[in-house]
C-alpha cells in the first residue's frame, strides 16, 4: 500500500508540474538575496500569480549586481535595498518610479565568546569601534550588495575608511552572498553585519549570536523600481507595473506583513508611510 501511495504522490506531482509551469505571462525580477533566501518571495508570489496569471521569475543577486543587470536591460523590474545606489540609478535615468514596500533591520552577529565585548549593545557604531580596537575577526560581504553598502557606511561613521579596512588582517572580505558570509563568520568565529530575514532563516549558525540590534541606523529599506521606457523599451514594463502596483496595494502589503518565519515577522510593510 505504501508503494501505491508513493506512486500516486509522484503522479500527482508530475501532473502538478505540467499544469503549474504554464503561466501565460512572465517577468524577470532582479532582486536581492535577502528577500529570496528569507522565503518572502516564495510566500507572496503564488498569491500574486494566482490573482493575475503573471509568473514572476526571480533572479536573486546582490543589490549592486541587480542594478547592473537592469542597466544592461536584462531585467524587467527591481526589488532592492541600497538607498544610495538606487538614487544613483534613478539619477542616471534608468528608473521611472521608486517606491518603498517594506523595511526591516540589520543586526551585527558574532561569536558567543564575544571577544570584542559588544553583546547586548544597541549602538552599532560603538560596536564596530570595539570590534576594530579588539581586532576581532569581522567578515564583510564585499559584493556591492545593499548589506555591504550599509556595512561600509557604518564603518565610515565609525572612522574606518573602506580602503584601510581592506588591509587589516582581522577584516575578511569574502566576496559572496549573505549566507556565504554567515557560513564564513560561523567557521571563523567572526562578527558580521546581516539582515534579520536571512539571519532568521539561516540554518548553520554554529556559535553565532545577535550581538548588536535596535540602532535606528540599522534600518533596512526595500524599494521596488520600475524601469524608464525611454532607456528600456525592450523590457516588459506594462506587466511589471502590475506587479509593482500589487506590491504597494493593500493586498500586497498585507501579504508581506503576514509572512512569518518561526512565528517572527520578517518584513514590515511600509508603502503607506515610508520609513
Amino acid at each position, binding site marked *: 500500500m505504501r508503494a501505491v501511495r508513493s506512486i500516486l504522490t509522484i503522479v500527482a*506531482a508530475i501532473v502538478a508540474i505540467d499544469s503549474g509551469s504554464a503561466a501565460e505571462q512572465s517577468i524577470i525580477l532582479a532582486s536581492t538575496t535577502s528577500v529570496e533566501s528569507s522565503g518572502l518571495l516564495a510566500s507572496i508570489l503564488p498569491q500574486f500569480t494566482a490573482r493575475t496569471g503573471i509568473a514572476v521569475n526571480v533572479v536573486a543577486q546582490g543589490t549592486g549586481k541587480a542594478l547592473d543587470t537592469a542597466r*544592461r536591460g536584462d531585467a524587467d523590474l527591481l526589488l532592492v535595498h541600497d538607498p544610495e545606489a538606487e538614487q544613483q540609478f534613478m539619477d542616471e535615468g534608468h528608473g521611472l518610479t521608486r517606491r518603498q514596500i517594506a523595511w526591516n533591520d540589520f543586526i551585527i552577529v558574532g561569536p558567543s565568546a564575544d571577544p570584542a565585548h559588544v553583546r547586548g549593545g544597541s549602538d552599532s557604531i560603538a560596536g564596530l569601534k570595539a570590534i576594530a580596537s579588539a581586532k576581532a575577526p569581522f567578515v564583510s560581504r564585499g559584493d556591492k550588495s545593499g548589506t555591504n553598502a550599509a556595512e561600509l557606511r557604518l564603518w565610515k561613521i565609525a572612522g574606518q575608511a573602506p580602503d584601510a579596512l581592506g588591509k587589516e588582517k582581522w577584516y575578511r572580505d569574502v566576496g559572496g552572498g549573505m549566507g556565504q558570509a554567515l557560513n564564513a563568520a560561523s567557521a571563523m568565529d567572526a562578527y558580521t553585519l546581516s539582515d534579520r530575514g536571512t539571519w532568521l532563516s539561516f540554518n548553520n549558525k554554529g556559535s553565532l549570536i545577535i550581538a548588536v540590534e535596535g540602532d535606528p541606523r540599522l534600518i533596512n529599506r526595500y524599494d521596488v523600481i520600475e524601469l524608464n521606457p525611454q532607456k528600456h523599451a525592450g523590457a516588459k514594463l506594462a506587466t511589471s507595473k502590475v506587479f509593482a502596483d500589487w506590491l504597494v496595494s493593500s493586498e500586497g502589503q498585507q501579504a508581506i506583513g503576514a509572512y512569518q518565519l518561526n512565528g517572527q515577522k520578517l518584513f514590515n510593510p511600509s508603502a503607506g508611510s515610508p520609513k
Partner: protein
Amino acid sequence: MRGLSRRVPAEIARLNPGTGIVPASPDFGLRRWHRWVYVENSPSAGNVQRLRDFLEIVVLSVSVSLAATAVAATIGLPLGAALAIFPFPGRRSIVVLINAFLGLPPVVVGLILYLALSRSGPLGFLGLLFTPAAMVIAQTILAIPIISALVHRASERAWARYGDELICDGASRLQAIPQILLIVRAELLTAVLAGFGRTVSEVGAVILVGGNIRGLTRTMTTTIALQTSQGDLSLALALGAVLVGISISISATVFALAGQARTAGSDET
C-alpha cells in the same frame, strides 16, 4: 521510482524555508526520510508541493543536460572522426585547441555567453538570457571539446589500422566517417557519457546564464550552491548524493543497453 520517493521528500521540505517541518540534525536526513516514509507518507497538498519542487529540479537538470549532450554529440562525433580522417593544413592546431578546451572553465563560458545573450549584447534580440535554452547552449559549448577529443583519439587509431582498407573498398573519406564511427562505437559511448557528466555536474555557467530562477532554471547543482549558502548543508549533501546517483544509474543503463545491442548484433552475424 519507489526508491526515489523514499529517500528524498522530507529533505525537500527544506527547499522552501518556512514550510519547515523538519528540525536540523546531523544524520544527513536519514531519520527524517524514515519518518517521512512511515509517518507522513500521504499525498497531502504539502507533500505534493515539496515533491513537485524536487522533481522539477531533477527533471530540469537532466533534460537540459541530455539536450546539451545530444547537440554536442551531433556536432562532436562527426567532428572528431573527420579530424582523424581528413588531412589538411592546421589540423594539428585544431586538435591541440580542442584538447586545450577540455579544461575550459565553465564560469568563463558562462560569462562570455551572458554578455552575448544580454539584451544589450549581440544576441540579445533572441531573448534567451535566464531561460533553459541559454543553459543548453552553455553546456553544449562545454561538452563539444570532450566528445570530439575522445572520438578523435579513438578514430585516429582506427583510421591508422583500417583506413587503407576502407579507401581500397572504394569509400571516399566522407563516406568513411560513419564507417569509422561504427568501428569505434564502444568508445563513442564513453565519449557521450563523459560529455553528459561534464554538463550535469557543472554549476559556474548555468548559474550565470540561467539565473537560478526557482521552477524555471534551478538545476541540481545551482540548488546545492543555494542551499549551501543558506546554511542547509545536509540538504545540499543529500542533493549531491542524488546527483551522483543519477549519474551512476544513467551510466549503468547505457552500458546495459549497449551490452544488449552487442549481443543482438552478434546474433545477426
